[in-house]
């Protein structure tokens, strides 16, 4: 069944692009249902920082080769200290996306054993992809301040 039939609340952005807004606790169920109904390609998991609302938006992208349809399941979590359940049992590659989002945004995924250092190494500051992290200021304060090697 197509996503629109399964979830009548789904909104069609354009042909072949469906967006479902839902809440945190329903995601596992929806992803599972879609997986069983032909949406077998998990495209990616991405995270958008809506700093004004104080929320992170997690977007689960799924694609059906059969219906040629792309579904975005979007949920909102709090920016600080909120966590999400891992979906790595449904699709193994979600694990990697969760690792990245944990490192770059600081969202915690309960049940994922590989969270931790992934891309960065020894990063002491706040997760860099958050909107309140000013990369230009950071660069000016660190890299351009490192002294030149003085020759006598």
């Amino acid at each position, binding site marked *: 069944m197509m996503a629109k039939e399964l979830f009548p609340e789904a909104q069609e952005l354009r042909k072949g692009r469906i967006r479902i807004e839902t809440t945190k606790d329903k995601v596992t169920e929806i992803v599972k249902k879609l997986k069983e109904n032909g949406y077998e390609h998990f495209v990616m998991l991405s995270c958008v920082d809506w700093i004004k609302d104080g929320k992170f938006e997690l977007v689960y992208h799924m694609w059906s080769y059969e219906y040629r349809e792309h579904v975005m399941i979007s949920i909102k979590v709090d920016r600080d200290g909120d966590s999400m359940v891992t979906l790595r049992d449904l699709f193994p590659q979600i694990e*990697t996306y969760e690792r990245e989002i944990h490192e770059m945004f600081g969202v915690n995924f309960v049940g994922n054993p590989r969270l931790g250092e992934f891309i960065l190494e020894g990063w002491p500051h706040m997760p860099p992809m958050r909107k309140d992290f000013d*990369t230009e200021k950071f660069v000016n304060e660190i890299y351009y301040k490192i002294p030149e090697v003085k020759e006598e």
Partner: protein
Amino acid sequence: MKPIVKEYELFIGPNHPGATGNMSYHIWVEGDKVKKAETRVGYLHRGFEKLMEKRIWMQNVPLVCRICVPEPDVNEAAYSMAVEDLMGWEIPERAKYIRTIILEMARLSAHLLTVGGIAASLGIYTAAQWGVGDRDYLLDVFEQITGARVYHIYIWPGGVRWDVPKNTKELLTKVLDYLEKRMPLYEDLIIKNKVFIRRAADVGVIPKDKAIKWGVTGPNLRSAGYQLDFRKLEPYAAYDKIDFEVPYYPKLGEYEVLSEGSDIYTRTAIRMLEMQQSINIIRQALKDMPEGDVLLKHPQWFAWKVPAGYSYVRVESSKGEFGYFVVSDGGKKPVRVHVRGPSYTHGINVMETIAKGLNVADFAPTAISLDVCPPDIER
């Protein structure tokens, strides 16, 4: 006599000729068999997605092509298509054909590099020399069309940057003729070579029933036995007007079917067939290309606002599905640009899984045959 060391750890990369670019694998080996593998990435992390959030829409165009170095054009195309999707633009017909030509040339050059690389990782260095050498003729064409050898910055939101020069057809036809003439030589050297077959057949297999579930895309998926290609499923550029076939296992054309599904041999064979298909596509596009404009009129760059919305656009690259998830809030700058690189799944999850049970000597060829490109993993 008992061996003194039975189990050991091995680090492949980042400074290792068998590593695919600047990334590394940490493997645990027992005797000669890999027990466990872990991919270590992050050596190329530049924080592109962060940088894109603080630049205006047009300034991001030179940035995106740096995400995949061997095939930069797919990024430009995907980003442009995402912006066009949000803006509701329909690009001129000629621009569509030019995009097709450019994207196929990029695919051709990336495949030449990969096929040469796979062969080189199995000791056939001549193929690598040939692959890189022949790719250079394509780069010469790129340079004349776009103005740069590697980072073309040619495909723009609204079309292509400028029209192709007059001699393109003549030049490109000559290069394609040359490449077509070379293909049998590559076949003799790689795919029909008994040494290669012995090393490549049934090594590093992606099981057919797992391929889609693991998120495998592109030639790797087709080599597992699915005829799935986003050029056909969601046609972009001018692909819907061009007649071409998508090669997939077990229809390997003149190549023998020697193994069951996606191993190094089939992945190489699919890439060889795709190259021939690309030559065919470019020929058609050159023939059918209409006259006319190539670029829509842009709004003033500094004040350009893109309507709010979500857009996901995908392009079939030489490595698999390249997707751009672009979120706009109606402002001058994007809120979020998230790139889905094909190597993300191939390089980490798939590689870590299929590496189990490989011989150490087969590890590097397997990694290279998955066509992992590290910059699109970490961006």
